[in-house]
């Protein structure tokens, strides 16, 4: 009830403001918003991969064990993709203003293959056009989203060797600097 009253009051205020000729408020451009989010994500993802997994894992000083089932080991730590997903899940518990996920057209876990037409088009575009991003709009359920797809590039030997050798990987010839998948960021527009 309280929520309904607040919503009604806000609606009346908005109508009143528009009626008074107030300029419509313009928020940040979704593209700038998602580009900025991606910059943070990419920096953190690269740092975790290079500074933790590669440096402290089996390829470095071998004091931590990056593993899909990291909870099984006292020195276990999340694989870079799991770390990224853990961040996305933690963000989802904090806000509904955006969501993000890591996907690929060559996924090890098939649940991370593209599902929506925009995801498919975006992931194929960034793979075919290295360095470019993809932007689109899509309606999922009853919500329309601005959807941005950014390339996820192999930044370390740890990325390529793990994916090339994994029994569930559909591709075994990833090279450093190649696009391995994409980061999909969604912002609800309505």
């Amino acid at each position: 009830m309280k929520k309904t009253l607040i919503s009604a009051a806000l609606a009346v205020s908005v109508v009143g403001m528009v009626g008074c000729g107030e300029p419509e408020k313009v928020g940040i451009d979704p593209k700038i918003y998602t580009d900025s989010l991606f910059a943070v994500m990419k920096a953190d993802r690269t740092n975790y991969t290079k500074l933790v997994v590669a440096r402290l894992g089996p390829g470095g000083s071998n004091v931590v064990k990056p593993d899909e089932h990291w909870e099984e080991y006292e020195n276990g730590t999340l694989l870079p993709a799991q770390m990224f997903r853990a961040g996305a899940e933690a963000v989802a518990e904090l806000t509904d203003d955006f969501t993000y996920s890591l996907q690929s057209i060559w996924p090890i876990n098939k649940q991370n293959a593209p599902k929506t037409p925009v995801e498919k088009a975006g992931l194929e575009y960034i793979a075919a056009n290295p360095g470019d991003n993809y932007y689109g709009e899509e309606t999922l359920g009853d919500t329309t989203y601005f959807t941005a797809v950014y390339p996820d590039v192999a930044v370390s030997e740890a990325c390529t060797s793990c994916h090339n050798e994994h029994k569930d990987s559909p591709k075994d010839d990833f090279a450093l600097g190649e696009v391995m998948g994409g980061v999909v960021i969604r912002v609800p527009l309505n």
Partner: protein
Amino acid sequence: MTLLIGGYFLYVMLAAEDKSELLIGEASHGHFQIELACSSCHTDAFGGGEVLQNACVNCHGEELKTARDSHPKKKFTDPRNANLLEVLDARYCVSCHTEHQKEQTHPMGLTIAGDYCFHCHIDIGKDRPSHKDLAFDSCASAGCHNFHDNRALFEDFLVANAGGHWLGAVAELVTANHAGKNAPAVVPGPRVDATAQVARHPQIQQQWSLSGHAQAGVDCAGCHSDDDGDWLEKPALAQCQSCHGQEAQGFLAGKHGMRLAAGLPALQPKMSALPFKQDALTAEHGCTGCHAAHEFDTRVAAVEACLSCHDDSHSRAFPQSPHGQLTQRALQGEISWGQAVTCATCHMPRIVHDKPEAAVDVASLGAAAERAVISVEHNQNAMLRPNEKMIRPVCMSCHSLEFSIDALADENLINNNFKGKPQKHIPSIDWAIKRAQ
């Protein structure tokens, strides 16, 4: 008339003690004990789905976290799953576990058809040829997968623990030490002078002198003092939990103590639909229901107490079962008590703090046994369903993973309390090894 009827039900909802007229149907086997403690789940009379969801998480959230829940809510909140949520809204517990529909409730409290995995994993046959022709409803019912708890069933674990003889040496389990390590040095609160009671009850003092309490220096006043320092005739949960907090927490979370947790009178076996012994139907289930006062002999609580109430085929078969025979030999002093396999060994197992899936035998723990904090899980449901929860902390102390999986999937073997070998084989380890090669 409408106002009168509406007013009556409003009174029942908000003020009356007996709310049975509001029950829209019998609760499931998991919740029937507290079905009249409406506010246990309906924490707000005007709440909707989120209120119920919070109530589920409030009681079961920690357990799911410990189980490394394979399908937590956070996996389903991404908008890319919107189309899947239209089929099965896995963000909410009640989508699969609807209450007050006892007649439609299946094992695990499920109220939906058994093919729920199929909706999202329809393409599994493409990636796993071995799964191609499996029945749609067999994923979580054949001993291969669980929706929430797969700690003993995931592929890498199957491969790492493949092989081995079905029965190893009988393990020597460590002794629980949680209360000893964590009990307060001095029992809190004022202490009664129990001199007169000690003089009057020499037999009780004799029983106490052989107990763990005597060894730990917890005397009569330690339990029989009330908040004002007066004599307390019948100490109850509140007194026990001042030292045994961990055990009390488990007890209150399980079937034995959930009524007390909900503010209701203690459980009596007659309230349950399970088979119980006639002379135990009205026995009240508090701490001393199993741990007979003054002696507090955990050997009695681990078998005799269970069998004094439970009268199902699994329980009745226990004394003659291989596990029961080990217990008998331990009671006769032929083997150590650590090698006994009692009811509690499997259903209220000793667990290592922070490592609930770790085996608790001396050999597996190795040097860690010295510093490990071990307590007895008093939530009997924590290891019961799905029964694969027992595999790592219990079965694998003595048995191979393959035997454990097969045995727990064989209902006849469970009913006769594991007297014999499994008559069915779950191929999950075979398939996992084949894929790993």
